[in-house]
């Protein structure tokens, strides 16, 4: 009787864990949702109107999550692309640089300089290195910070709504921090 009870209990706990895991979004899922939503709060110059590619630099599990989200959300048809070289991602709307790119962030940013691409990463010191939006983990929640100077060097315009929910905004003109 005892092994049978243990087996049932194990199966029950496994199912329960999977159920809870499905209900609570994963970190990659939240980041993927953020990447989708960043595009909704930015305006491109007229020359780049219509581009809405979300590009992933390097190998990153978030690409798969983005693809899954894309298939489940038919309304937001953002093409998901994977590139190894930053220069190939100059025509993207948003470029996400995962942890695999932490070694050559400056190089990637330099390659994208002059293009109207929103750069996003969760690599530490991303904003100081010239990135535009850095994803942060605060109190078990994914937040983000914005470097307006880097955004200002492009023709991209970020909505004030996006800046409102940012943890802090870095710029030479102002620095806003939220508690």
């Amino acid at each position, binding site marked *: 009787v005892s092994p049978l009870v243990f087996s049932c209990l194990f199966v029950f706990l496994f199912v329960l864990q999977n159920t809870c895991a499905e209900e609570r979004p994963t970190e990659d899922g939240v980041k993927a949702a953020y990447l989708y*939503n960043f595009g*909704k*709060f930015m305006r491109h110059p007229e020359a780049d109107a219509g581009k809405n590619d979300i590009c992933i630099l390097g190998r990153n599990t978030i690409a798969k999550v983005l693809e899954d989200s894309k298939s489940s959300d038919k309304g937001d048809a953002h093409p998901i692309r994977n590139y190894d070289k930053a220069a190939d991602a100059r025509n993207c709307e948003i470029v996400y640089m995962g942890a695999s790119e932490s070694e050559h962030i400056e190089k990637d940013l330099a390659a994208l300089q002059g293009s109207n691409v929103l750069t996003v990463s969760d690599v530490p010191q991303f904003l100081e290195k010239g990135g535009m939006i850095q994803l942060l983990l605060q109190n078990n929640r994914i*937040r983000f910070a914005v470097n307006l100077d880097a955004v200002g060097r492009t023709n991209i315009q970020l909505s004030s709504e996006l800046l*409102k*929910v940012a943890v802090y905004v870095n710029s030479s003109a102002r620095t806003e921090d939220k508690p």
Partner: protein
Amino acid sequence: MKTSSRQRSIAARLTWMNVLVIGIALILAYVSFFAYNLIAYREATINSLTGEAQIIGENSVSAILFDDRATAQATLSALSSSRDVDAAAIYTQQNVPFALYARSSTDIIQLRPIPAKLTLAYWTHWESILIGSRIVFQGKQIGIVYIQAHLYGLHVQIVRYAAIAGAILLVCMGVALLVGSIFRRMLAQPIVSISETARMVTRYRDYSLRFSPGESYSEMQLLTVAFNEMLAEIQQRDKALAQSKDKLELRVSERTAELVAANKELEAFSYTVAHDLRGPLDTISGINYIIQHSEEQSRDDRSRQMLGRLGTSITEMTNLIDDLLNLSRSTSIGLHLVQQNIGLLASTILERLAEAEPERQVEITVHKKLLCQCRCGPHAGRHA
């Protein structure tokens, strides 16, 4: 004193009528304005709250999309400056509470589903209002914002309107009393004067009295002119009546005098006739007496019977003359109510007729006791 009391009465009635009319009109106007203001205030509050709900929804889009509850909470907290808002909440698309605001711990929002085709809905219950507004971003609903409010300002509005209406009512009634006291003389004085004149005419029968219209308005002038014309007509008729009465009295006195004179003449005539007849009749009666008592043995029965009848006739003639004299004085004697035996009177007359005409054989039955009450002189029965 009566004049002043009547004047007060009609003037007071006019004044109070004005005050009452103004009061009722003002109260009706106040009730109408209050009802309109109540509806307008309610609609304005609903419009304001729906606007606030939509603004909060717009400002909470990024907070919902980036799971920033603190920002959403701060947005909701801005409603603390809105006096009527008790509580507010933002719910996600999965109907999970995202941010909550409550003025006090007892303020709890009773959620209601928004109808499918609407982006905005509100529910009212007495002074409580619940607003529900969908938060839509780029054509997709991402959440719902609810605002629960209470029309606290309604009580302030009611008190304020009551105070203003009471003050206006008092001022208007005071003005009405003041204006009424000014105008009441103009309206009431002519009527009071007319009534006083009518009272004097009725009491003293003096139809020569007239009322002066003065400076009264046209209706009062018409009334006073008509009143004066009526008095003139009555005076004229009264005068004619008095003249007719005098003439009639004169005629009656003349006729009475003529009648008295005629009666006297008739009385004198009757007296003269009776007196003149009595002389010869006394002579006949004396001769009859002498004849009856002289040479009585030489007369036969027939002669004796004839002399007896002559004596009886003389006696009847004497009574007749006496009655004639009495009749001539009947105007001075007067009639008396006496009881007469009509049956006996009729029997006497029938016997006399039978003696006068013995050849006629008539059978007449008369009741011997046929009494009646009649007004007549002492010997009236014999005249019949």
